[in-house]
């Protein structure tokens, strides 16, 4: 397909394709590397942000947990009165702004031997107003509340899962519970729990104040995955990170959740259902609470700057490629324009204008200059060659015209006028010579030797063309010149053969069949020097026979005597002489016309006149050859003897 396009086009295509490929490779590499670097730096930033936030929260939890721990210690080492406890408790709360409420919950009968329950609780109804209530008055059965039961059973302080403190604090909270004990001599006896509540709305505010890009967010989960803070407050307490994973059918999130609750940290990609897109998350544990903080930021915002930068690169590169494209077009046009000029000139030269002088760029030293010079040299050679050719052609034309003259001369040697002897009623003779080349090697002849004897013959010179025709002319002239001198046909042939053999350096020869017919008696003397045996039709019997006798080799080969023989023919008999051009005519199937075909043709048409028969044979041979090139001269000579008319 490309082969039909111009060089300029191909050049632009290849260079641009390579350039674009290189650009894509470099761009992709750059994109991946910068993305990785950016991600690494963002991971560091996210880590710093998450850890500093976690530290801040830890500070808060340390501070919040200090109060109940101190109260627990106070209760363990002293036995304060109810009034003292309440004063101390409210004072501590007043001085701990991060704490929402403080409760001291005693085991049954452990504070007063007489009263079953005692659980004083102070909490902030408003930031300024601290309210007191004894939660044991409420039927809330605090012994079974997580904040009481769990630290009691595990003998350890802990931050509770988020819960709504119904009937007491009436807010969403998490409670830090510290169990305290009394020494009863043998063992430490569990006496109660001191708690500090923190409002989750405060935590929510703290985490919400973290800003990560445009729409990033943070969230906090508890030891068992409960959502403590989240941009969607509906999730708080109601969901765990695991229930969210289940709801979103996102096993990855469950995996992340498990890592978080195990106290690990990590930087992972994940799909945020809240933001509806791919995000990255950094999570880290809080040291004080077994909780975990996560910061989430959307990938597209993360890579916004990078994307912008890369779009710029793409834009600039596209402009560059466009300019490059135009430059390549211009340069390749400039480079190929001499070629185009040369092509036009070549076309001119091709159409015969060899004299064009203005070949371009001959003074250049590059490939174009080389091509131009080579072309100039070619033009010169071509011009010289054409000149030679013209001369040769002229010479050839001269030779051809001379050949044509030779042909005319040759044609003029053989008798062509028919009827040849209109005054002679005794016989009728007709002959045809159809040359294969301009000048043929066949010959026929007939003439009267004297008043009664008619000489007629057919010959075929070896070879073709001018030498053959000259040899033929010599032969014919010799026969004409010496016919009268000889008494017999054999003698005539022997003598002429002698002449022909002499100085025959070219080793040419001629097959020859000659007859001498006494037109009065019908006596026919003939001699065959290596020629095709002629046919003779016996008019009376209708018989067709061949004069098969050969009296010697073709003329011009060896000097030796030839004999002859005589037969007598009757009125109506016809003798048919021919050259091998008849029987050896080929058709397209490479078959020869052949003797049998000639024989049957003659047999079927024995009653035709000499002329008719000769023309019929020629037309049948041509029909047989069916347009195939004639390879040899065709000569047919037919003589019909009518006898002496009285």
């Amino acid at each position, binding site marked *: 397909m490309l082969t039909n396009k111009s060089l300029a086009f191909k050049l632009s295509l290849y260079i641009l394709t390579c350039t674009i490929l290189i650009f894509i490779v470099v761009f992709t590499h750059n994109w991946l590397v910068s993305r990785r670097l950016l991600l690494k730096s963002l991971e560091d930033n996210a880590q710093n942000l998450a850890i500093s936030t976690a530290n801040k929260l830890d500070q808060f939890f340390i501070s919040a947990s200090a109060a109940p721990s101190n109260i627990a210690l106070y209760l363990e080492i002293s036995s304060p009165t109810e009034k003292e406890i309440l004063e101390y408790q409210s004072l501590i709360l007043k001085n701990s702004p991060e704490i929402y409420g403080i409760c001291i919950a005693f085991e049954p009968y452990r504070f007063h031997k007489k009263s079953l329950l005692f659980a004083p609780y102070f909490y902030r109804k408003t930031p300024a107003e601290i309210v007191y209530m004894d939660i044991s008055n409420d039927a809330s059965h605090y012994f*079974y509340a997580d904040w009481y*039961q*769990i630290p009691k*059973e*595990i003998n350890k302080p*802990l931050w509770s899962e988020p819960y709504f403190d119904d009937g007491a604090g009436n807010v969403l909270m998490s409670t830090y519970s510290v169990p305290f004990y009394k020494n009863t001599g043998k063992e430490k006896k569990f006496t109660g729990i001191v708690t500090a509540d923190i409002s989750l709305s405060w935590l929510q505010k703290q985490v919400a104040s973290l800003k990560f890009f445009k729409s990033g967010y943070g969230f906090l989960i508890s030891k068992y995955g409960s959502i403590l803070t989240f941009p969607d407050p509906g999730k708080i*307490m109601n969901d765990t990170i*695991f229930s969210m994973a289940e709801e979103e059918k996102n096993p990855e999130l469950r995996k992340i959740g498990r890592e978080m609750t195990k106290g690990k940290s990590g930087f992972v990609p994940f799909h945020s259902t809240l933001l509806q897109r791919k995000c990255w998350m950094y999570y880290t544990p809080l040291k004080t609470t077994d909780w975990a903080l996560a910061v989430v930021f959307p990938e597209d915002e993360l890579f916004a700057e990078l994307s912008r930068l890369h779009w710029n690169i793409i834009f600039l590169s596209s402009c560059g490629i466009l300019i490059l494209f135009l430059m390549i077009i211009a340069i390749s046009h400039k480079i190929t324009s001499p070629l185009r000029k040369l092509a036009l000139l070549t076309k001119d030269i091709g159409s015969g204008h060899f004299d064009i002088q203005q070949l371009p760029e001959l003074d250049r030293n590059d490939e174009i200059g080389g091509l131009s010079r080579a072309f100039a040299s070619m033009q010169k050679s071509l011009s010289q060659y054409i000149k030679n050719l013209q001369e040769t052609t002229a010479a050839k034309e001269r030779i051809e015209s001379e050949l044509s003259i030779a042909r005319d001369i040759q044609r003029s040697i053989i008798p062509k006028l028919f009827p040849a002897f209109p005054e002679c009623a005794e016989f009728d003779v007709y002959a045809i010579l159809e040359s294969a080349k301009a000048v043929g090697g066949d010959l026929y002849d007939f003439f009267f030797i004297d008043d009664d004897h008619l000489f007629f013959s057919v010959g075929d010179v070896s070879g073709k063309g001018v030498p053959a025709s000259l040899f033929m002319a010599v032969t014919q002239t010799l026969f004409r010149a010496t016919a009268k001198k000889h008494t017999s046909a054999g003698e005539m042939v022997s003598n002429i053969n002698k002449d022909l053999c002499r100085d025959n350096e070219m080793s040419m020869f001629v097959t020859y069949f000659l007859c001498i017919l006494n037109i009065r008696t019908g006596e026919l003397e003939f001699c065959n020097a290596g020629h095709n045996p002629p046919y003779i039709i016996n008019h009376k019997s209708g018989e067709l026979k061949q004069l098969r006798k050969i009296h010697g080799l073709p003329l011009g080969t060896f000097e030796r005597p030839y004999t002859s023989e005589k037969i007598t023919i009757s009125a109506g008999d016809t003798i048919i002489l021919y050259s091998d051009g008849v029987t050896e005519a080929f058709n397209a199937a490479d078959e020869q016309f052949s003797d049998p075909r000639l024989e049957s043709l003659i047999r079927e048409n024995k009653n035709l006149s000499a002329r008719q028969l000769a023309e019929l044979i020629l037309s049948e041979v041509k029909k047989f050859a069916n347009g195939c090139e004639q390879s040899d001269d065709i000569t047919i000579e037919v003589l019909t003897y009518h006898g002496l008319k009285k």
Partner: protein
Amino acid sequence: MRMNNKIFLIISFLICVALHADDAKSLDKVTLMTHWLPQAQFAGYYAAKDFGIYKKYGLDVTIKNADPFNSASELIKQGKADFITLFLSSAIKLRANGLKLINIAQTSQGSALLFVAKKSSGIQKPEDINGRKIGLWMSDFQEIPQAFLKQYKINAKIVPIASGINLFLWNGIDLVTVMHYNEFNTIINSGIDNDELTTFYFSDHNLDIPEDGIYCMEAFYRKNPDICRRFVLASMEGWRYALEHENDVLSKLSGRMKELHLAYNKFHQQWMLKKVGTDIFRKGKSPGALSEAQYLKCSEVLLKDGIIKKVPGYTEFHINPGGEKNADK
């Protein structure tokens, strides 16, 4: 003209008031007390109330709920409820102990109770429970877990718990009683994988005792058999409605739960509704019916464990005004 308008408005208002009063009068007011806090476990009753099914059956039902500290049986004893839901085992125990409760529909057809332990605690088979701490709900649901412990002669420390699984998560107890449709899923949603847990489904330990049913006092039934019949029919229709209109019913349920500041997780409640619904409408069982075989099996367990001294008569205990008796006896 103006006068005529006023008269017309007054007459219209009076007609409305009269019609409304008549409407209200024709509904029978009853109270249902569910045996646990609002959750999808009772979605059928809430659906029947919220979507007008009780009203269609001529009932004006008030639904209250028990809590870990106020059991439904206590409240019906005090006359604070006409109908209650209850575990079969608790109900037979109460009946044998003299409280004339009757079962008018056995909604649950199989057991969903199990003990769960963390594999990390080393508990793999019932014997491993010996000497461990087990969290058991303090109100009405203890009979079958106790039967399990007796069956394997397990001597363990029982820690009464109110609700939830946090004590278990924090390793304050080694095992906890949970309902498969509720707390079990909560444990999974606390990040503990199924393969990290050892479970003892009571149904796998020859204790496939059905649980939730609808109860009323025998006297109430004798006096109001038609109300009982309508209540059962409407409740079962409510269940079907709840299963077919999950989202509508759960959205109403979320309101009830949030009102009580309970954690509402739609996905969890949906899961619970499906599990409970499947249990109510089991293939080959007629919904609401309690077969004598089920009844006797439960009674024998209680008898063997000494929880009851005598098996109350089946026909006195279970009347199914809303459907046919179970075929499998």
